[in-house]
């Protein structure tokens, strides 16, 4: 078990955990993620994994470097900071997440902080229902990695409501909204989420053919 501090205030959680940052637009994203990653940017004992659609992690790292006021390329070269990407196959995306996390943990980095944006209906990324399956599998998949802290970012300005409800609120134990960390009362463990939500997603349900 590893206690993970957040950059501002006295917010902290015990790893492993999987939380959702719900933000509105790019400015809130930068603030929220920087707050989460700042301790790791300045501590060589901590690891970072950034993922997302192709090119997104690299772009985001540049933004972080500006916020941190220092060059982070050496950290990337030394793989203290690892950049990854999503995949159209949700299972592959899960492996893309787990492999670098195991590597960072095995090399002794602690905690290992992860940030990845939610992508809904984006080509090159998993279909929405598979993305939700992926989200629900993150926590059980990292339960043996007690230094891992995962933050998924959900942009309320861009994502549909069902992504925020089914994804951010129901697959994460905690959320950060307007900088405030709180438990998600809607969270469902993966098994229950599969039975109660995933196989009943409205766009997967058969409905009557309507005359046109």
């Amino acid at each position, binding site marked *: 078990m590893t206690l993970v501090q957040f950059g501002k205030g006295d917010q902290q959680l015990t790893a492993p955990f999987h939380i959702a940052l719900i933000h509105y637009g790019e400015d809130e994203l930068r603030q929220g993620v920087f707050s989460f990653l700042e301790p790791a940017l300045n501590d060589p004992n901590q690891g970072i994994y950034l993922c997302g659609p192709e090119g997104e992690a690299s772009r985001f790292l540049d933004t972080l470097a500006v916020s941190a006021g220092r060059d982070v390329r050496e950290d990337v070269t030394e793989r203290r900071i690892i950049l990854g990407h999503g995949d159209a196959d*949700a299972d592959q995306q899960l492996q893309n997440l787990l492999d670098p996390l195991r590597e960072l943990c095995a090399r002794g980095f602690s905690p290992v902080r992860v940030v990845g944006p939610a992508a809904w209906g984006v080509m090159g990324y998993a*279909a929405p229902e598979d993305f939700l399956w992926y989200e629900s599998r993150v926590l059980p998949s990292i339960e043996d990695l007690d230094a891992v802290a995962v933050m998924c970012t959900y942009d309320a300005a*861009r994502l549909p409501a069902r992504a925020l409800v089914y994804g951010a609120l129901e697959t994460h134990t905690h959320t950060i909204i307007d900088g405030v960390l709180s438990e998600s009362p809607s969270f469902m463990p993966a098994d229950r989420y*599969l*039975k109660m939500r995933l196989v009943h997603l409205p*766009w*997967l349900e*058969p409905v009557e*053919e309507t005359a046109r």
Partner: protein
Amino acid sequence: MDHAALDLQRGAIAVLDPDGNVTWADDEWAAGDSENALTRVPIGGNLLQAFRAQDDPIARAVANAIVAIFEGRATYFEIEHRASPESPRSILTSIAALRGNGAGAGAAVIHRVVSGHPPATRRPQDVRTPSGEPIGDAMARLTPREREVLEFMATGLDNRAIAAKLSIQYSTVRGHVRAVIEKLGARSRLEAVARAYQRGLVTP
């Protein structure tokens, strides 16, 4: 064109018809307004190249999606709101711009760009694959091993965990999962599970 293959989420939708055309539909069409809301885009190499060359991630995504359809990796695709609710409109505007830039005569034909409300749902009454085959018949075409993999998929396991359960290679499981998805006419892992679940063929 297989209208039943259209998904029903809000946004732009494109389907490849048997004549090799990609048909764009928007919410108004999906809500049953009229055929006028369709935009037919005969695909040509010039159009794809022009899409790829654009400094526009959405246009490049569209190009990749069209290729995926032609390669049989997808039967349709959709684009939901990304940068703004205007995304579907901007995609079609991009196509129109390509025409103006001489991307190929007849490469794209834009009839109309319409935005609208979330579409009404329309799906076959019975659970069928996009080809119209009843799901039960599709299930019968699964091999015993594929069926076994599907049952594990229905419990939520990832491929590595399934490989461990069955004592087989991870890559082998990936192949089985792809076969299951394809044979059930699903577009995704979860849709395959949901289809089988809806018919009581597996229990999550």
